[in-house]
């Protein structure tokens, strides 16, 4: 099977950032908490490849550890959205047309109707800013996305003859959902997961930017951007590199999601 270019590019970009995050556990060029005022605001160069910030911390090291924060928050938040959303979607599809289906889907609409980021800010403002609260806030808004994707895909499967055959074989809705429906919509969920993952990274950056995500001294891309704001004329590299990191990660994940859909969606596969 030919691997589409978008998938290779996306997976490549994603792999670079995942590798940076993993390596940061073992090694960073400099200690991210170590300040060196004498070397502050250095432009990119030989010793500090991406320069230093206003406390003299190494930007590359902060970006690597920041990747860790972003990825951790996004993964857990997407996982939470899947764990809550997929069963709700399966349940709604199994009970299609019933009151339960209505309750689940209208509940989804309710969550959808709130501006996600504003509520996330509210949650972190009420419960205090921390990476954990950011995860919960982003996770809640991932739930209806997965519920709806799951229900839509599952509904089309419920009309197929092999589901009918399973019912004739005496299997109940729960067993059919797990044995027949879930494995056949896994592709879709993986693709959706990739897209939600990139949105999670954006949301984490946004929350950190307004100071409601990971707290200092833990580096985070959003807060790096916020801190760079006042010095943009003096040291533009402080804004450019975290900004690039966010853009490239999100781009990479979106391309990967697109590419995965191209090879996993059986309809697109057949069309080729």
């Amino acid at each position: 099977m030919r691997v589409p270019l978008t998938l290779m590019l996306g997976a490549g970009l994603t792999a670079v950032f995942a590798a940076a995050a993993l390596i940061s556990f073992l090694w960073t060029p400099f200690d991210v908490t170590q300040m060196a005022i004498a070397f502050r605001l250095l432009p990119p160069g030989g010793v500090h490849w991406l320069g230093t910030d206003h406390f003299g911390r190494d930007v590359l090291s902060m970006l690597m550890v920041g990747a860790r924060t972003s990825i951790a928050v996004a993964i857990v938040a997407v996982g939470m959205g899947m764990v809550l959303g997929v069963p709700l979607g399966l349940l709604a599809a199994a009970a299609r047309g019933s009151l339960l289906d209505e309750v689940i889907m209208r509940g989804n609409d309710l969550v959808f109707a709130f501006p996600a980021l504003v509520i996330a800010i509210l949650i972190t403002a009420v419960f205090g800013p921390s990476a954990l609260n950011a995860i919960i806030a982003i996770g809640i808004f991932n739930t209806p996305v997965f519920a709806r994707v799951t229900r839509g895909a599952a509904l089309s499967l419920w009309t197929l003859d092999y589901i009918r055959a399973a019912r004739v074989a005496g299997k109940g809705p729960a067993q059919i959902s797990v044995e027949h429906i879930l494995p056949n919509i896994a592709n879709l969920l993986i693709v959706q997961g990739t897209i939600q993952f990139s949105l999670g990274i954006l949301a984490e950056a946004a929350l950190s930017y307004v100071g409601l995500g990971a707290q200092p001294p833990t580096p985070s891309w959003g807060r790096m951007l916020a801190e760079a704001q006042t010095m943009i004329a003096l040291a533009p590299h402080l804004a450019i590199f975290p900004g690039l990191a966010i853009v490239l990660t999100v781009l990479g994940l979106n391309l990967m999601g697109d590419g995965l859909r191209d090879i996993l969606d059986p309809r697109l596969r057949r069309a080729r």
Partner: protein
Amino acid sequence: MTLISVRDLSLAIAGTPILDRVSFDVQAGQIFGLVGESGSGKSMTALALMGLAPHGATVSGHARMNGTDLLSLPEDRLTRIRGAEIGMIFQEPMTALNPVQTIGDQVAETLVIHAAATRADARTQARARLDRVGLSGDRFPLSLYPHELSGGQRQRVCIAMAVALRPKLLIADEPTTALDVTTQAQILDLLRDLVRDDGMSLLLITHDLAVVAGLADRVAVMQAGRIVEQGPTEALFRTRAHPYTRRLFAASSHQPARHTQTQDTPLLTVTKAHRTYTLPRHSLFAPAPTVRAVRGVSLTLRAGESLGLVGESGCGKSTLTHAILGLEALQSGEIRLFGRPAGPGMSNDLRAGIQVVFQDPYGSFNPRWRVEKLIAEPFHLTGRPADWRARVATALTDVGLTPADAQKYPHEFSGGQRQRIAIARALITKPKILVLDEAVSALDVSVRARILDLLADLQAQYGLAYLFISHDLHVVRAITDRVLVMKAGQIVEEGPTTRVFTAPQHPYTAELIAATPVIPPDWTEGADDDSRALV
């Protein structure tokens, strides 16, 4: 006069030959039938003529129409010819129309695009075309949307669009395959009239020999991308010179050898079954409309018997089948299986006694499971026995596959083989009743003949009772002892199959039988002798 002359049309996709030197002529004002089984290349021939061959296909040969070679024309010239000189209609009227445009706009669009009419004039002309195909203005205004029409009416709209510019050639690709027999007869009549009155030529593509027999002046038989035989319809039907033609004929009139052993024990009784569905409300205050899908149906299926249930789409046979299988509840009436009440809540041992084979060989299996796991699924009802693998192997052998097939995935099998797997799955719990829900309708004639043989053998071997649900009268006649005719939720006629088919009592049964296309009996003398060629 020759309208279009096709010579040595070959087509290959990525090096795989699809068409191999196809040559034929369509005369002006004639109907040319192209018959063959699925994958024989008959649709691809039509698409190649229209310049619609799939991307990456290499086409060679000539197709001359009025002195121009269609196969060498650039795309912009072809777009002008499509619709104007050659019209085309497809099998599936449900998807051939744009659901968000009115039928008037869609017919008018064809006229405007080809600059055959101004926008204002186009609607008047669209009206005239729709009148011509039998959709009169009082019942079918231009403002209707496709979803407000039945399948047959939609196919009429498709025909109106295809003939809007009075093309010289109309290509009809399986135009009636998705339609009920009575509707099919009307659409075939319409096509015949259009050819006769407007002097159009028709290239009719179909798998159904009987349709061709009643309509075409000349016929070509296609097999594996080649035309193996062609000639005037009657002569070709009578002589059947090519072995493949003989096999096709034998298969389509095939009668499996059956040894019925009906006993008097009733296995399944349905008494006064009723099922009504509530439709979405149109207005907040009016009561929600309802449709009475099954209205007081009673039937009995005896041990070892083969009972047919025929009816057109929407007659309620699916609802009734689902109720019998315990997939849906009835509102009143009773279903008893083996003397015990049955329904959605029935016990597993009761369910194990009645199993089903569905129509679609492609949608019947979880694509991620191996055949072994698929066939063993109904063991959920009985508990999986220790020797389940041996039982699966036996079931596979019973249906003419090999035990080694157990480790394969469904996509590795053809449609007919998949239907065998579906039968193996249905038989694994040793049921007494097998419900065959359009089980052979999606299969090619030769494959269908073999599956019918298999069903006859299995019935003799295991003393099974069959409830055979189908819209195809030929098949029902070949495999059942007794038949029920269903219309609008009611059984209108019931009796021994031979009697119902030769001397129908109810006008609807008579109408169904009259509408079913048949090959004139004297054309096919001796075709049965060829049935040996099948096995």
